[in-house]
């Protein structure tokens, strides 16, 4: 790729080559169509230019042609639709073994929290060959996390989590852009995605000491008093949170919802929005009391109570109680 006249972006994720292949297919089809129409217009315009004594030959139309040039393009477009949907389905379905990284956007910076506790600003270090899932939220307006070299983009909204996953393939430094207009320094709200070989990444991770995210969450869980009600040893006033993550929850209005990141988040900020069947709406709302970073730590902690098998540092560092029985003070 020329440094001064880039005609093609770097390919640095597993999705990049897939998206490019589809793009090339579209370019070919669109190129052929454009060429055909340009050629047809040019040839017809010259061939049937006005000549003395030759009148236009009136033609009403042709239903067969009309049907043909409606149906054939439709089927060609159907191939675009299906191929595009297949790629999109993969882009929106994170693998179960993905390592989670929390992203908090604000005007005009990206704050990154690794599950192991590392914090970064406007930089995200990731190893090659590992599935990474970003769990993102915004503190103010809508932003969009965009990595052209990965061909991936996801809007980041206030008040909820959105996710983006990828597997980086080629070590290097790639642009991170904010792609949703967010005010004065929208164009400055960028940074770098630093893709490293796994061994370099391990070294980078080992540098500096930090507390794992779930560990922070665990401390918050007791300091905020959550643990007085959410407990398993006695019948608490709140539901026991062990093992609930990503499982169906029966609500008192009869609905069943999946206890995903957004559910856990909402239940902390606005507990009465969805009451678990069999419990009273007695929990205070934490909207405005916990920051987005603290919220991420709490969500990571709740999640760690359900993922004994996950090999993340969070649980390995956790005290030797069974995940099913959170320590209660």
């Amino acid at each position, binding site marked *: 790729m020329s440094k001064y006249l880039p005609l093609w972006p770097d390919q640095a994720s597993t999705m990049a080559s897939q998206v490019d292949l589809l793009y090339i297919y579209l370019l070919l089809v669109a190129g052929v169509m454009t060429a055909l*129409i340009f050629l047809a217009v040019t040839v017809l315009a010259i061939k049937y230019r006005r000549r003395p004594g030759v009148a*236009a030959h*009136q033609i009403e139309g042709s239903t067969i042609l009309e049907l043909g040039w409606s149906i054939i393009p439709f089927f060609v477009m159907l191939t675009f639709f299906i191929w595009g949907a297949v790629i999109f389905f993969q882009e929106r379905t994170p693998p179960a073994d993905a390592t989670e990284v929390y992203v908090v956007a604000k005007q005009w910076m990206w704050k990154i929290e690794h599950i192991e506790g590392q914090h970064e600003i406007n930089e995200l270090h990731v190893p090659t060959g590992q599935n990474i899932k970003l769990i993102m939220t915004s503190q103010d307006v809508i932003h969009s996390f965009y990595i052209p070299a990965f061909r991936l983009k996801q809007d980041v909204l206030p008040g909820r989590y959105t996710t983006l996953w990828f597997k980086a393939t080629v070590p290097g430094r790639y642009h991170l852009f904010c792609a949703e207009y967010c005010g004065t320094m929208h164009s400055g709200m960028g940074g770098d995605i630093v893709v490293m070989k796994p061994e370099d990444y391990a070294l980078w991770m080992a540098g500096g000491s930090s507390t794992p995210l779930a560990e922070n969450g665990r401390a918050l869980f007791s300091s905020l008093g959550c643990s007085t009600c959410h407990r398993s040893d006695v019948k608490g006033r709140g539901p026991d949170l062990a093992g609930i993550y990503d499982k169906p929850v029966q609500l008192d209005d009869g609905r069943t919802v999946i206890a995903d990141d957004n559910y856990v988040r909402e239940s902390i900020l606005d507990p009465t929005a969805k009451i678990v069947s069999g419990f009273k709406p007695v929990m205070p709302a934490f909207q405005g009391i916990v920051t987005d970073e603290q919220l991420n730590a709490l969500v990571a902690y709740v999640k760690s109570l359900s993922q004994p098998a996950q090999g993340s540092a969070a649980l390995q560092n956790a005290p030797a109680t069974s995940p099913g029985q959170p320590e209660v003070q």
Partner: protein
Amino acid sequence: MATTSIPASQAPGSTTKLNYLNNGHTLRSWLLTTDHKRIALLYLLSVTAFFFLGGFFAMLIRLELLTPEGDLMQADTYNKVFTMHGMIMVFFFLIPVVPAVLGNFLVPLMVGAKDLAFPRINLLSWYLYVIAGALFLHCMLNGGVDTGWTFYTPYSTAASNTNVIEAGLAVFIVGFSSIFTGLNFIVTIHRMRAPGLTWSRLPLFIWAHYATSLIMILGTPVVAITIVLVAVERVFHLGIFDPRLGGDPLLFQHLFWFYSHPAVYIMILPSMGVISELITCFSRKRVFGYKFVALSSIAIAVIGFLVWAHHMFVAGISLYAAMVFSFLTFLVGVPSAVKVFNWTATLYKGSITYATPMLYAFGFIGLFTIGGLTGLFLGTLGIDVHVTDTYFVVAHFHYVMVGGVVMGFLGGMHFWWPKITGRMYPEYWARLSALLVFVGFNLTFFPQFVLGYVGMPRRYWQYPPEFQVLNVLSTAGASVLAVGYILPMIYFLWSLRYGPIADANPWNAAGLEWQTASPPPTFNFDQTPVVTWEAYNYDEIPEKELEAPVAQ
């Protein structure tokens, strides 16, 4: 044809015949007119003024982007400049330009009516446009607005400290001007067609305006309400869109695009109607597949209401919603493609001349084809994730909205200029300008497709240095384009005084508007025409001796 009145063409220099232009010379006779033709000219003046204002902001954008650093203006200023460019061009130029100018002038003439159904509402519509425009100018001089033309929440309701309310009010008011125009067209087309002018005999220009009017009256109220909700949240902190107040930011995007995607068809459909008139006239042929072209306009209007969420594939809507909207987006591609194929087929076995309006029609087909096909890229989910909110999108919608709409408008202006003014434009300069617009346009916007795919996001005041060469190309193209747009301004004005006098039908075109004098009398026809022929009966109309009237 024998049953219609065909006034003798005016003798050169004759000023005795009363027409809509010399029927009253006072300012009052213009400002209180209910003549659709005069209102069309009022619209022409105001829309042109906004076009050049919007164009001025476009040049500021292109100049800032000559260098990667933000050096010409401050970041906040740049944000206001692109916002103002977008709002002016979308709400004050692209939406009204063809319907309110050419549509206003031609719909009654083409259906053989004396005026639109509600002449006073038509005048009111222009006054609303002017009030909204004045409000917007006031907002602009008072510091402007920086939300982007899309008003996305919660930025517009909670973060921006610019004149969002005033800009919103201007958009709200100008929306009613558009609703009134649509209402007038629908009633006129239903109720005021000349005897014998059945639906299947209507010019395709009328079909296109009918479809446009449907979108105007069904879609515009939704954006008006949405803007009111933005104001309510901004002023009273009532939680509608801002999650901190209990609202949902995606609700705004759904409501906004429910109108603003169909709005794209409000812009392009009337121009498509123009192109159908031009291609038939300059190939001396009935349009290929009349019914399919006519119904494709209605199909675009209807399906166009079902595709809005394709603007939101990465906004946080569900996987399956995205798939449904992607599929529907391809459906709307079909009637658009049908039009292009039928125009091309119309050329077959025609007797084609290359007067300026036809050059614009060729240009339209070229640019709309590229704009339409790149729309398919954006409808394809896997591609859209990468290119949405980049310069690829910017290039795409400029190909459709500027390449399409402005080519159609300029083509139509050249074609009907003799009808509107009674004078011909200078053919040589007009052809030159058509060429400059086509070349300049492609040079400006084609590099932006590349720029988008390599990853440059839109609405960027500064950018990484590797994107500079493509941006410089784009700015160079924009200056050629500017010359192409300024030229017609000059020679149209020149022709008002020095252009050769045009007779009633200088192109020997079909259509009722050519059967009355140029310029037409105030009530259009001396006698109500009776139509006994199909649209585009070019086999019954002799060709002119000259290829086109040429200025000395």
